């Protein structure tokens, strides 16, 4: 059957969903209102670490308008279901201690202790002031290094220390590499704590109907089926009695890929038999949304004098906050760092020794990277230091060590399988955009005038389409496609809309398969009652897995359509084709049916008995197909070495910054990107998501920092303390370019790109500041005061 050429995939089709967002007519969870709805407010722990002696809600219950109050007592038996199970990966369990409302102990400031359901938000908050909780404070564990060393107070009494997981991998002969090295270069980097904080916080509307024994939950989430699964396991309700819907989610970036807050309004709804809405305020968000980054790495590289890397050693301590396995799943980040810490480089000898500790801070979880960002830092920090100590331009070191284009698919020493790419070409493009040779001359000239600019470079691999054997994260993705008798095609998927434009991009894919337009396709998403199973919106699974399921489903349905069309037109199936939305006889295009005509005839009148060929009629007479897809790339068993992602988008990025050496302020003058995410469905959607990520990375490096004091008290609790970039912080010039090396393991060659923007930009900016001052950065953020310290150090060393 002839395939008409791609028309929509690859085009920057303006987004179908924009009108509803721009006119305020898109429904987010907090926009929803139901009859009898109650509002939930949560009382949270003011201590970082304490035993709960007593919770007294008697006074609060008397306040008019308060309908129900729950505490840890009501949560007993409802341990939070584990989210990071992986048999090959032994971490200490948190399950016995983890509840949505603390039962006998609190482990971070902001941990929920009691929850009120009242007739409006104001009364609910009033009631909180009347709940009396008696705590016995315990010493807080705040420093990850101390948590690692032992002797600090234990967060989990059943554990012998505060290390949730240690995970080390190696390959080749590292000792030999270091013996043979012409140079050994050491360094360290401490990256601070920051996170995504989408403008919409967590919002949940839970509605239990006792008459139906059914629980419906509308939630701002990134995974409806995971949300349902964990809710069912936690509350011990059979899953078929729960429906989870994500109407529209106001930003995710991974911060809404954790599943525990829903339990609170759900339990209140079950107790009251009324809908209960919980909308997190910004203080709650900044203190109890998942935090990210916050690790310290020490690295050593064995290399030749010409920059060839012989071997790498790295030790890392990651601060998980109070846990990494039952609210989110950040323990997995150690696996990811181990898998991708070698980046886009050919290194055969390595040893990574990584540890994840628990401390009395908010739990760690996903934020654009989920460990792949940390993985990027390993080699990028090493190369930056190598370039200064060996006096070799950093781009030369990269070139010398890159995996070459002809070597794909490339099995990295860590077991990861990189599907395709062209790292040297990306580097070439960035160097050209920066006009690197002349720019460096300009830099020297400006120095003489007392102005200090720096040029930063970084190369990145962004593994996408996660699939880890024997873990929760290898679930299939499904798609259901149906052709409607009175016009149009409906696509149903489990995916959630977090800003990636799925109403448009998925419609583009379907439109191409059926030779119609995106307007002829409606995408229905985010509802467990309607969607086929899918694991969720993370790790770019949309472009990789969901698109693959959509394409497979479309092609199966198209086969049926052609058979029916041929049957109606009284020719053989091989004599018809689908073209311009019509099933036409190839030799005589005047004999054709539109999809609408075909569907009308095949569904209603004259009906399936006369229009469907007999073989299909008695086996599968539905004008719809549901298909599930899994990637052929990761293996089906857990063993080392093994791969855990389907595709490998990549980039090279560069920046020009100016450092004000009197104040330490850093200004980003120019930012350039050469990007490769394989074949692209909608180029403008890709570009703008990437830019958003870049700004998150710039924000994370220069302005944003989550801080706790030595008692575990959060110091950054409002947007006055936690500074996210505004429009005034964008680089003066931003240049985005792309190449496309198709993905060999996905039907359309798409790779996805959702996380990359935020993963690499911190490395680029850090390198640029180093280039401006001539020395190595050992810790972030690069706030003015910190940079001024670096300026002084550079002066002392005679570099300025």
């Amino acid at each position, binding site marked *: 059957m002839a395939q008409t050429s791609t028309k929509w995939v690859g085009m920057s089709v*303006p*987004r179908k*969903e*924009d*009108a*509803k*967002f*721009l*006119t*305020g*007519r*898109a*429904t*987010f969870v*907090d*926009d929803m*209102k139901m009859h009898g709805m109650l509002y939930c407010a949560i009382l949270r722990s003011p201590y970082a670490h304490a035993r709960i002696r007593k919770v007294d809600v008697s006074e609060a219950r008397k306040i008019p308008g308060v309908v129900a109050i729950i505490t840890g007592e009501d949560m007993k038996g409802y341990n939070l279901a584990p989210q990071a199970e992986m048999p090959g990966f032994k971490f200490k369990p948190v399950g016995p201690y983890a509840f949505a409302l603390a039962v006998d102990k609190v482990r971070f400031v902001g941990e929920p202790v009691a929850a009120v359901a009242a007739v*409006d*938000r*104001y009364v609910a908050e009033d009631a909180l002031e009347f709940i009396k909780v008696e705590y016995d404070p315990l010493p807080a564990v705040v420093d990850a290094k101390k948590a690692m060393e032992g002797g600090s107070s234990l967060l989990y009494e059943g554990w012998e220390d505060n290390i949730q997981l240690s995970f080390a991998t190696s390959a080749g002969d590292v000792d030999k590499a270091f013996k043979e090295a012409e140079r050994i270069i050491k360094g360290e980097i401490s990256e601070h704590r920051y996170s*995504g*904080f*989408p*403008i*919409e*916080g967590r919002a949940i509307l839970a509605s239990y109907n006792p008459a139906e024994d059914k629980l419906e939950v509308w939630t701002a989430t990134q995974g409806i089926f995971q949300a349902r699964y964990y809710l069912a396991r936690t509350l011990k309700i059979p899953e078929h009695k729960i429906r989870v819907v994500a109407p*529209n*989610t*106001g*930003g*995710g*970036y991974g911060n809404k890929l954790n599943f525990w807050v829903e339990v609170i309004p759900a339990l209140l709804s079950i107790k009251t038999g009324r809908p209960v809405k919980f*909308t997190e*305020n*910004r203080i709650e968000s900044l203190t109890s949304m998942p935090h990210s980054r916050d690790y310290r790495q020490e690295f050593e590289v064995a290399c030749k004098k010409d920059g060839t890397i012989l071997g790498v050693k790295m030790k890392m301590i990651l601060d998980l906050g109070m846990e990494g396995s039952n609210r989110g799943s950040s323990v997995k980040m150690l696996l990811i760092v181990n898998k991708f810490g070698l980046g886009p480089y050919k290194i055969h000898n390595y040893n990574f020794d990584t540890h994840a500790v628990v401390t009395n801070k908010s739990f760690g979880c996903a934020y654009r990277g989920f460990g792949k960002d940390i993985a990027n830092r390993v080699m990028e920090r090493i190369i930056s230091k190598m370039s200064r100590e060996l006096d070799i331009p950093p781009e030369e070191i990269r070139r010398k060590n890159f995996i070459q284009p002809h070597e794909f698919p490339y099995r990295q020493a860590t077991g990861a399988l990189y599907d395709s790419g062209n790292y040297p070409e990306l580097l070439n493009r960035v160097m050209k955009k920066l006009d690197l040779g002349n720019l460096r001359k300009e830099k020297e000239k400006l120095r003489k005038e007392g102005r200090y600019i720096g040029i930063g470079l970084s190369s990145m691999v962004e593994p996408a389409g996660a699939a880890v054997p024997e873990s929760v994260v290898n679930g299939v993705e499904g798609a259901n496609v149906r052709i409607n008798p009175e016009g149009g095609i409906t696509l149903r998927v489990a995916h959630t809309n*977090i*800003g*990636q*434009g799925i109403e448009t991009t998925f419609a583009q894919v379907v439109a191409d398969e059926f030779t119609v337009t995106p307007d002829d396709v409606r995408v229905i998403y985010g509802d467990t009652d309607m969607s086929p199973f899918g694991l969720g919106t993370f790790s770019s699974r949309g472009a990789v897995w969901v698109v693959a399921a959509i394409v497979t489903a479309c092609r199966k349905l198209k086969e049926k359509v052609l058979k029916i069309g041929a049957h109606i037109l009284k020719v053989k199936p091989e004599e018809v084709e689908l073209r311009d939305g019509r099933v036409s006889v190839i030799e005589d295009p005047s004999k054709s049916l539109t999809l609408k005509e075909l569907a009308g005839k095949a569904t209603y009148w004259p009906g399936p008995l006369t229009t469907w060929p007999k073989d299909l009629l008695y086996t599968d007479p539905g004008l719809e197909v549901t298909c599930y897809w899994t990637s052929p790339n990761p293996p089906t068993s857990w063993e080392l070495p093994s791969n855990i992602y389907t595709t490998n988008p990549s980039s090279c990025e560069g920046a020009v910054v100016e450092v004000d050496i009197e104040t330490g302020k850093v200004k980003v003058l120019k930012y350039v990107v050469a990007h490769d995410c394989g074949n692209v469905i909608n180029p*403008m*959607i890709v570009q*703008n*998501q990437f*830019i*958003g*990520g*870049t*700004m*998150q990375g710039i924000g994370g490096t220069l302005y944003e920092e989550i801080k706790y004091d030595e008692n575990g008290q959060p110091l950054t609790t*409002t*947007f*006055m303390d936690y500074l*996210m*970039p*505004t*429009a*005034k912080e*964008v680089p003066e010039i*931003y240049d985005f370019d792309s190449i496309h090396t198709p993905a060999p393991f996905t039907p359309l060659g798409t790779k996805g790109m959702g996380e990359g*923007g935020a993963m690499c930009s911190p490395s680029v900016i850090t390198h640029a500041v180093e280039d401006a001052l001539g020395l190595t950065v050992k810790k972030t953020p690069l706030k003015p005061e910190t940079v001024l310290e670096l300026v002084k150090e550079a002066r002392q060393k005679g570099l300025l």
Partner: protein
Amino acid sequence: MTVNGVPYMGTVEPRTLLIDFLRDDLGIAGPKIGCIEGKCGACTVILNGVSVLSCMIFAVQADGADILTVEGLSDGSKLHLIQEAFKENFAVQCGYCSPGMVMSTYQLLKRNLNPTEEAIKDAISGNLCRCSGYLSIINAVKDAAKKMREQG
């Protein structure tokens, strides 16, 4: 108060915030709550002709006021020129900040139909966006200004 041309009446406690009155009492959910502290701009509406943060104003303070929210610019079937410009420039991703961004753009263009890039960045500096990195939005505002100049 009048909201998007429709007169409303309500009885509220003095402490009821304007944003809550609009969203919960009147069902006008375009303006969003992003931070409740006046730092994100998602709640931006036009009150008596100027853009304000409706989470920082008590509903009683707006007694007798004339309020315009994003719903008042279009019902969705035919977009306002500003909204059109946002769509054509791919300036929307998750959409949560969009109503506030549109209203800040409306305020800017009401005062200055030929803004410089500096002026545009300043005009939306009180509206946080985490998805877009702002560049597409800046382009959208430039385009909206052009469209509105051409319309006259």
